[in-house]
């Protein structure tokens, strides 16, 4: 953090190659008071001639390709840094193989290669083939990346921070664990799916966990149904959130319903 920056002044030109605007707005956002990229010496300039670096967004549509090429060629011969912002520019994003997206013939349009191809790298490789110098490239994925993430990328470029991510390759050696839930896995999955419709995928796991905790406690007692009801009342009184209380009640009903159905031996299959 205290490292002396390699570059103290980075003038950037913003090159949108068909992005949805999200990344572009975030680029503007890093200039605003909360992020203030000017601290790092970043300045958004109006002409590629002034730029040290090109901030590229977008999946590189064919219509943009020619202009983007011109823009990079219009930069001073060095350093020509390319800052690739957003998933689209990194790899084509969700649009990666639509018909208007530019891909080098050798990149193909579909396939299982990884890292996934697409985005601005296609243009950079074309330029390098033509003998144009293109400087270092830094990728900042995200859809869109948070302003902090862009700042982080730029700080990395300036040598202020180190990169944190490493490619990972896990094999079976890491071991496998099949988490054991306190309740029957099938019931859990059913409840989980039900919760998705009530509070959504994000909050469901936490609520379900709490619920299972209570169920586990309740199952240990003699009258699980009454016990569970009591526990849930206590829990709701503590958490004081209308929605979570609602879910708990719902889960309680569902739990008993599914469990009864299961134990009655009825065919019960859930699907994702």
């Amino acid at each position, binding site marked *: 953090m205290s490292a002396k920056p390699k570059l103290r002044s980075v003038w950037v030109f913003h090159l949108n190659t068909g992005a949805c*605007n999200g990344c572009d707005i975030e680029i503007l956002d890093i200039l605003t*008071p909360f992020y203030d990229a000017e601290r790092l010496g970043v300045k958004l300039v109006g002409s590629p001639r002034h730029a040290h670096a090109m901030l590229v967004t977008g999946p590189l*549509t064919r219509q*943009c390709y020619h*202009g*983007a090429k011109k823009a990079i060629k219009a930069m001073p011969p060095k350093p020509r840094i390319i800052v690739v912002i957003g998933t689209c520019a990194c790899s084509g994003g969700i649009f990666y193989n*639509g018909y*208007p997206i530019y891909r080098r*013939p050798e990149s193909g349009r579909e396939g299982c290669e990884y890292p996934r191809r697409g985005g601005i790298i296609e243009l950079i490789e074309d330029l390098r083939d033509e003998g144009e110098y293109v400087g270092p490239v830094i990728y900042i994925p995200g859809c869109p990346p948070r302003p902090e993430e862009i700042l982080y990328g730029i700080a990395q470029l300036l040598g202020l921070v180190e990169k944190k991510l490493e490619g990972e390759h896990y094999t079976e050696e890491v071991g496998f664990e099949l988490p054991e839930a306190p309740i029957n896995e099938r019931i859990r999955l059913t409840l989980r799916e039900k919760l998705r419709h009530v509070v959504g995928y994000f909050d469901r796991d936490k609520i379900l966990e709490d619920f299972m905790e209570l169920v586990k406690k309740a199952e240990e007692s003699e009258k699980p149904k009454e016990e569970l009801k009591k526990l849930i009342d206590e829990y709701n009184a503590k958490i004081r959130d209308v929605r979570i209380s609602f879910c708990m009640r719902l889960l309680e009903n569902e739990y008993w319903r599914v469990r009864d159905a299961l134990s009655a031996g009825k065919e019960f299959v859930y699907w994702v």
Partner: protein
Amino acid sequence: MKYLEELKAKFGERIEEIKQLAHNQWLITVDKDILHEVVVYFLKHPEWKETQLSTMVGTDERPLRGKFSVTYWLSVNGNSDDVYIGIKAYLPADDPRFKSVTPLHKGANWYEREVQDLLGIIPEGHPDPRKLVLPDDWPSCVYPLRKDFHYSDSPQGEKYYPYREPPQGTTVHPIGPYHVALDEPAHFRLYVKGEEIIDCDYRGFYSHRGIEKISESRLTYDQICFIAERICGICGFTHSTAYCQAVEAAGEIEVPERALYIRTIMLELERLHSHLLWIGVACHLTGFDTGFMHAWRLREHVMWLCERLTGNRKTYGINLVGGVRRDFLDYRKEMIEDVLKKLKSEFGKLVDDLTSTKTFIKRCEGVGVLPYKLAHEWSVDGPLGRGSGRDFDVRRDHPYAAYGDLDFKVPVYKEGDVLARALVRIEETWESIWIIEQALDQLPGGDILAEYKEIPPYREAIGTTEAPRGENVHYVMTGPGNTVYRYRARAATYNNLPAVPDMLRGYTIADAPLIIASIDPCYSCTERVQIVDIESGKVRILKEEEFNKLSIKASRRV
């Protein structure tokens, strides 16, 4: 619909079919020779003052019926009736032509060029039949939205430039695609005399990413929500909402009320940050960076709020067909209230600052005037239309989500200049805050995501929302096997952009960025994309002749 009777009386048998698609959507099938007459009949109907050409959809229905079809969708605004009318005509597969509406109504210009580009349906008598959507190096006679075109093919053609010769004695002043005042690529070719703009040519669709095709082939219903959101990075949520509404209408899915309210709140939050963004950008373009910084500083609070509510600052990703993916727990509601409180006090200050900066007002006043008549002819939308005296708002005229239960004003100004548009946006910001407060108070309980079994194939519907820039219209024709048969997204800017040359004419190149920005353009919205299906895995690049042959053969087969 009493007007249908009138219509029947007028055109008689040539009206082939009238059916109701959803509670407010009617589809009228007519003979292709009277298509333009019927469209203009509605557009110029004296009792429907603000009737608007909402969208136009061309569909390759050859696998179904052996025909192409075009449908003009009109929205009837400013009237107590909440009606959308689709006027459809089938065109023969071997000779898909129809009479162009553009000579009678300018607003149809782009729609017709688009179907010509993407489907090879030719609008006869179109005044400007240049290529609109496809890349300049796209081969002719290859129509990507036809069903025999594979979505990931990308045939190479010869690069050419479609620009008009500049008028005698003028200089070309190109703005874009890479101009600092444009966040997105778009090419305004201004023909100038010194500083004064004489004429303007526009080449957009740099951000054409083929979303519609991708959606029709690679993606499933739920996945399309996410690509619809990425139509635009600012108003993406209105797009995904409009898409979901279209599918929900087509599939007759009942959306839980709580989901509707959550959508409403998010839509208004989006409007808040979008309008604050616009105010900032307008300041930035006139060199008033302090205004830019303060507007965006306020906006940042909304962005943070959205991040905490949905998990992302702008691509909220919480819409699914049938509802939303995240709930508003109580602490989230409190966060919204806090942010609103902050906004209310600081936004007032910001507006005061802006209006007391004389140089800024001077730059906005009397610039880029779009008179009411032109606004109507171009069918412009949203704050642009309201700044020119058009009194409409999808939220009020065709209530969706929870807007029917909420109370709000629709600001309208008659001046039609940049300042009027700014004032409309400022007032809308206040209204949005008010709407969110109401919605929070009334937030009902229950589920947030509907459960549905299957969406029946080949049903049509449209979904509309009022984006910060105007009306978004998404048309969906459902298809078999969890995919969409035809998806058509129309963003507000699609209607607004063609009017820009009229607004630019006579002003100076110093005003140009501001005028262009004053419609709050969103090129990526306008230019969408089309995609959807994964596995084939092999690279297919065909020579042009080969491809042309192929498509000809294919059309013969169908």
